[in-house]
């Protein structure tokens, strides 16, 4: 199998679904002629035509609202929003319509659409280009929320997202588009939702991460191993549905949990996970659950961004604190 980066893995998966799923349509800003600002849709319009890979006007609400109508009509649209920071004009469409139509029509109308959104900091981009507000989506009933961490998962989870009968928010870690290489099956093999992956086996402390934070959690685990501590590293893959069982199995074994998220701290996904761990496994804990997160600040611009984004060092420090009993 060839080694590809995440952007390439997504590209070959989109090419695959356009070829095999005739009900798919890609729409978004600059996705056609230029292949998207991150080139994830590179070459797809030339191959599949401008009816199925559509360059839209700059109108996020319009893109998502039109994709919603297409989905109800029987298609499986794949909408791209250029950056998570530009998504907010479409949030009303998602929270007021896309996420609700199945419930408000008792399954009569459904919206099987995928919204792909690059997210996260780490490339020193301009303001609004470094957001990590995945908690907004996890907090919105009726959405599935997917955050792949490596090329194979990006391909497999995207394939599952396209085939899912409900709306999926597919968050692509910008920093990981070209950071990692990995083997991707051709054609891609689906990765099921709601099944976390154990990226490293250990029995001393559990590190839970997703998306761009997974490589940093693994790097932290390496550092901990040098100290003689073995970390169990869990990659959630999907926030909704959440594989809480895998997290609980690990935490009850290690007695220590460190949850890593790039998003703002207050009401972030780590807070939800910490609450669930204490509800289900409090008496197995040997130390308070630790959170390693971004701060409740605007994501700082390039020169100070590193103060915000969790690093392997910060994760390892939190783990050492937990190992000492908190």
């Amino acid at each position, binding site marked *: 199998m060839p080694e590809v980066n995440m952007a390439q893995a997504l590209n070959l998966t989109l090419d695959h679904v356009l070829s095999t799923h005739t*009900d798919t*349509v890609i729409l978004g800003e600059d996705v056609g002629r230029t292949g998207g600002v991150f080139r994830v849709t590179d070459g797809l319009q030339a191959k599949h035509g401008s*009816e*199925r890979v559509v360059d*839209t*006007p700059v*109108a996020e*609400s*319009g893109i998502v*609202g*039109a*994709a*919603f*109508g*297409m*989905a*109800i*009509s*029987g*298609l499986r*649209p794949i909408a791209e929003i250029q950056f998570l920071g530009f998504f907010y*004009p479409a949030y*009303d*469409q998602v929270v*007021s*319509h896309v996420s609700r*139509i*199945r*419930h*408000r*029509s*008792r*399954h*009569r*109308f*459904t919206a099987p659409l995928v919204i792909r959104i690059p997210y996260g900091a780490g490339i020193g981009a301009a303001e609004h280009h470094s957001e990590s507000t995945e908690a907004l989506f996890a907090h919105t*009933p*009726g959405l*599935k929320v997917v955050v792949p961490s490596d090329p194979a998962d990006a391909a497999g989870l995207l394939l599952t997202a396209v085939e899912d*009968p*409900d709306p999926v928010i597919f968050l692509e870690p910008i920093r990981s588009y070209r950071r990692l290489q990995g083997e991707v099956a051709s054609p891609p093999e689906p990765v099921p939702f*709601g099944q976390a992956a154990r990226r490293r086996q250990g029995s001393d402390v559990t590190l839970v991460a997703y998306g761009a934070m997974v490589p940093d959690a693994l790097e932290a685990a390496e550092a901990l191993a040098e100290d003689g501590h073995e970390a169990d590293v869990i990659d959630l893959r999907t926030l*909704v*549905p*959440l*594989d*809480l*069982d895998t997290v609980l199995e690990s935490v009850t074994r290690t007695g220590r949990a460190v949850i890593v998220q790039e998003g703002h701290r207050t009401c972030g996904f780590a807070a939800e996970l910490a609450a669930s761990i204490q509800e289900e496994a409090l008496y197995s804990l040997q130390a308070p659950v630790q959170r390693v997160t971004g701060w409740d600040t605007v994501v700082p611009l390039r020169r100070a961004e590193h103060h915000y984004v969790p690093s392997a060092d910060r994760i390892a420090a939190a783990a050492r604190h937990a190992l000492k009993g908190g």
Partner: protein
Amino acid sequence: MLEILQPDGSLAADAAAPLDDEETRLLFAALVAARAYDRKGTALQKQGRLATYASFEGQEAAQIGAAAALQPADWLVATYRDAAAMWFHGYPWMNLFLGRTGDERGGSPPMGVNVLPPSITVGAHMIHAVGLAWGERLQSRDRVAMTMFGDGATSEGDFHEAMNFAGVYQLPVVFLCQNNHYAISLPRAEQTASETIAQKADAYGFPGVQVDGNDLFAVHSAAQPATARARSGGGPTLIEAVTYRMAPHTTADDPGRYRDSNETEAWKERDPIARVRRYLESRGSWDDDRQAELETSAADDVEAAIAAAEDLEPLGPAEVFSAMFAEMTPQLVRQQQALMRYRDA
């Protein structure tokens, strides 16, 4: 402004009726049925049997004249004030009442009825019609999507995005604005500096037409070619139906705070239903016996619909969780179990 059928039931000079007498009687019956539903809705709300109700009295011809231009498989994407059009396009009175009693099953019309549940948020739904029309075209079906909205919705940013997408992709969409003169309390003149709402279509590169929205013939005369043109690939149309909301915005509103009752009285003279009756009577096509029979049958239908809605058992605690996804997530299963444990304890 296009006007054909005048308030006294006569045709405007040089105007011809777009419908024959049989077709006119059919639509007249629909107008009467819609008013029976609407008045029942307000009455039931006052009895506490429905949640807040939004009357469309005065707007029946705008809705039915437009919906009558649709073919059965076409899409209708409308609002909480558009029950007349939704019903005419196949959405049962029972479901409309059911929704108003506070039950999500009201949002589930029978299969084959291509009408979305009414949009409660203002303006966001127009782009859904655009997406539906687009999706139909991509699937090589010649269905049209009509979307209905009020003057108030044209101030929303989503109105612009929907009109713009429809124009750019030349989609088979008909935008039907019922300009009823008020966005709750804000008069039309304070909503936009445009002289008409219809003229806004110019900016998007497709036709806009203003019609007397209380004139069944004028509305239908605009809507029929608009749907036909859309179906044949000619692109979208904006129709501004100038009408008037005779009732409060909803049963929770007090229009005395923002409009003069003399204005409302004056619009009574322009009633959309009375003029069709006068027209049919003048042609010997209608009489008091037929009217009595029609009103009885409309009232019976409405009573049967509310009875069917109220007979349904409310959704149970388990069902609250069961329509979020095709398959419940483990989190929803846990939450459902928590609620059931609490109830059983």
